[in-house]
């Protein structure tokens, strides 16, 4: 059975207040821009003012990405702007709206805000250049001409965003889920630009196209907001779970968090993918949570294998935690054990976790004990610790300037 009216927007859901704020911001900007246009400008410039309003509103309509950063919807209104204005107007509109949005920029980007203004200006001018070049190269008229030109402008705009993120040292755009958001923005922008095309008399939508084709984009933004809210709650729940052994006094305060940070560093250097790193991080945060199900009277004496088994048993049934559970379960295994039931990546992750946890146990977060700790790990018997992981750890400590022995 299906029912078609039951859309994801349900009253009172988390994320909805944000959507409402977005809609209010966009509508307010459109109204203000329309009123300003009516009062100040001659008839031919109304559309430009509304587009400028959309460029400003788009800075407030941000798509939250997986790495905690946000992608403002700036690519969508940029396309009608570059399709209909000369370079000077594009630059003026972008600079003016960026200055107006500076308080918001400052809140989101802090000291990087001026850099972002420059990045926007460069991106807009590059997109304008790409649009004009393509028009010049194709040389035909109508939609057939406009579509490739809009595509080129959108591609260049996305490239400047990618470059800007790289300059700012953020996680790669793709890993943060940015390309999907950029694609949705670019598609809506193409529709907005086509709605403003001058050579479709009688059926031209004009600036109403901006409002109407913002609707699918708002829908996508809503889904991003929901995803962000639940991601946040989920991460925090994991962190809360990971803190239980500390509260019970079974492990040193901060142990799970430090182990997780070290695991991420080792895992990244050993070439684990983003998903594998996420699983490894969860496994590291939760690796000692099994203490709480053991009898605490003898919690301190419980051996590592017992805790790992208890932790894995706790996590294994939970959706989303089965891979971390597998990693924790594999921790007690020697690194050369012929364990066929595990994927190779899970075994690698388990060896990383074992080394990181043992190193953290030995140093207690104090790098001055690093040399002794490493020495002890290297000389552990019976293929306990994977020498490749130990080597990576040693290189990481070396880069940090930690003395790692003779």
């Amino acid at each position, binding site marked *: 059975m*299906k029912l078609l009216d039951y859309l994801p927007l349900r009253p009172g859901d988390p994320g909805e207040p944000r959507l409402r704020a977005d809609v209010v911001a966009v509508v307010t900007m459109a109204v203000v821009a329309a009123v300003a246009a009516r009062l100040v400008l001659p008839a031919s410039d109304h559309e430009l003012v509304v587009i400028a309003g959309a460029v400003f509103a788009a800075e407030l309509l941000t798509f939250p990405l997986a790495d905690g950063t946000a992608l403002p919807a700036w690519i969508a209104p940029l396309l009608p702007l570059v399709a209909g204005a000369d370079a000077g107007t594009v630059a003026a509109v972008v600079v003016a709206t960026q200055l107006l949005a500076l308080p918001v920029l400052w809140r989101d980007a802090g000291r990087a805000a001026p850099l972002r203004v420059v990045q926007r200006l460069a991106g807009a001018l590059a997109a304008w250049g790409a649009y004009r070049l393509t028009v010049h190269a194709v040389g035909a008229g109508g939609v057939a001409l406009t579509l490739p030109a809009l595509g080129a402008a959108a591609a260049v705009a996305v490239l400047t965003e990618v470059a800007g993120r790289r300059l700012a040292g953020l996680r790669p755009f793709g890993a943060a889920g940015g390309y999907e958001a950029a694609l949705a923005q670019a*598609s809506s922008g193409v*529709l907005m630009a*086509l709605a403003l095309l001058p050579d479709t008399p009688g059926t031209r939508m004009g600036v109403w196209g901006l409002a109407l*084709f913002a609707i699918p984009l708002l829908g996508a933004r809503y889904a991003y907001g929901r*995803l962000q809210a639940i991601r946040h709650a989920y991460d925090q729940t994991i962190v*809360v779970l990971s803190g239980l052994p500390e509260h019970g006094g079974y492990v040193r305060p901060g142990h799970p968090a430090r182990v997780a940070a070290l695991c991420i560093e080792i895992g990244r250097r050993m070439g684990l993918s983003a998903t594998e790193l996420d699983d490894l991080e969860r496994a590291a945060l939760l690796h000692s949570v099994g203490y709480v*199900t053991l009898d*605490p009277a003898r919690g301190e004496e419980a051996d590592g294998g017992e805790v790992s088994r208890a932790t894995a048993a706790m996590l294994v049934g939970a959706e989303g935690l089965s891979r971390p559970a597998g990693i924790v379960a594999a921790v007690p295994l020697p690194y050369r054990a012929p364990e066929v039931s595990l994927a190779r990546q899970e075994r690698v992750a388990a060896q990383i976790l074992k080394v990181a946890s043992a190193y953290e146990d030995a140093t207690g977060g104090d790098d001055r004990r690093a040399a002794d700790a490493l020495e002890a790990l290297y000389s552990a018997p019976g293929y306990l610790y994977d020498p490749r992981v130990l080597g990576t750890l040693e290189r990481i400590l070396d880069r940090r300037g930690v003395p790692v022995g003779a």
Partner: protein
Amino acid sequence: MAGTSTTPRMQRLYLALVAVAAAVAAAVAARDGVPAPGVFATFAALALGAELVSVRLPNGATASALLVPVMGSFVVLGHEGAALAGGLVAGIGGIYLPDLRRGRFDRVLFNCAQLLLSGVAAAAVFSAVGQGDTLGRLVLATLPAGMAFLVVNVALLVPMLVLATGRPARGFLADLNPIHVQYVPFAVTGAALGWLVHGTGLVVVPFVAVPVVVARHTFSSYLALKNAHEGTLRVLVRALETKDPYTAGHVERVARYSRYIGEELGLSEVRQERLRYAALMHDVGKLVVANHLLNKPDLLTPAEYDEVRRHESVSVEVLGRIDFLRPIAKAASPLYARYDSRPDARSDPIEPYVIVVADAYDAMTSTRAYRRALPQEIAFEELRRHAGTQFHPVCVEALIRALERRDERHGAGYEDEIVLFDSPPPVRGTGSAGLGDLASTDTSR
């Protein structure tokens, strides 16, 4: 047995009725003209895609963008074959490939027929209202047309659901209420798309599909992560129950009673969800208390009592570290959440008081290591006696009202599961994690 054998026959009869009505409606609509094949094929493909990427919501309903191609075809075709095209485009939405793979042809046929009727009804309303050729008029005309679509859709669907499940129609109507403004964005987007296609050609169609597909993809990631979050909460609940077998089911029951109270109080869905998470986590601090103390049948020594009470502060701290639970973190401590402990209790969020009442009720009506379950009447009496001091009076009355309306009985004689004891717990006494300070109030008086 008679009932189960007639129901499939009734279902088949109803299916045949709807199918015949759909065929007649299509024949009548065809007299208004036949749509241009290129336009029709494009929008039909869009309808097929819209259904294929539809999302199944947690409540079992489906969210899809079918109204976009339906409304789009109305606008593009104007009066030339719009009724037939709209009906057929909608009807094609019934071809849901997973149903076909599972061999549920009856389901596909029913969905095609009922959606075709919905589409033809929407086309009739659209052509009645949408006379004229300005963008504004067309956009406005999609609103009553979309409403007509949904009303027919629900009206045809609910009888089938009733026949198939035997559950009363009222429940389905509450879930599938067509009077939701949420169809508006899809209908309006469809009109805008149709207008643009009219001006610039079918090449623009994919550009509307992209944001919808991105939204859908993101929304299913959201649903998957929500499941993972629930799974993590179940890890907590399970761990609690392994540790303290006497509280088996306690956390889930507190969550259920909290929901009852929340429904009586008319809390919004977002607050109900937050209440549920807080109820599931309210005892999380118990995980750090030693097993033998939780299950001790005798009186606790003062030191042991402090140790057991420590779980409350751990719970409060833990809940406070989760952003969206922070406002109600003190729910984890009956001491903080005493109704009379705060002069401004009326302006506080009510959730902590809800959980305290639900927790106390379940503690009294279930058997613990130190006491057998009390009868429901005694539990109600205790709750009412401490309403206004320990408990929020509104929550107490809401819980009693909700339980009486549902005719639910808990407590002595109505326990969920029989627990076997090494040494039977005493019959009297009210001390427990949930009622700890109720007991101390009693002795001080």
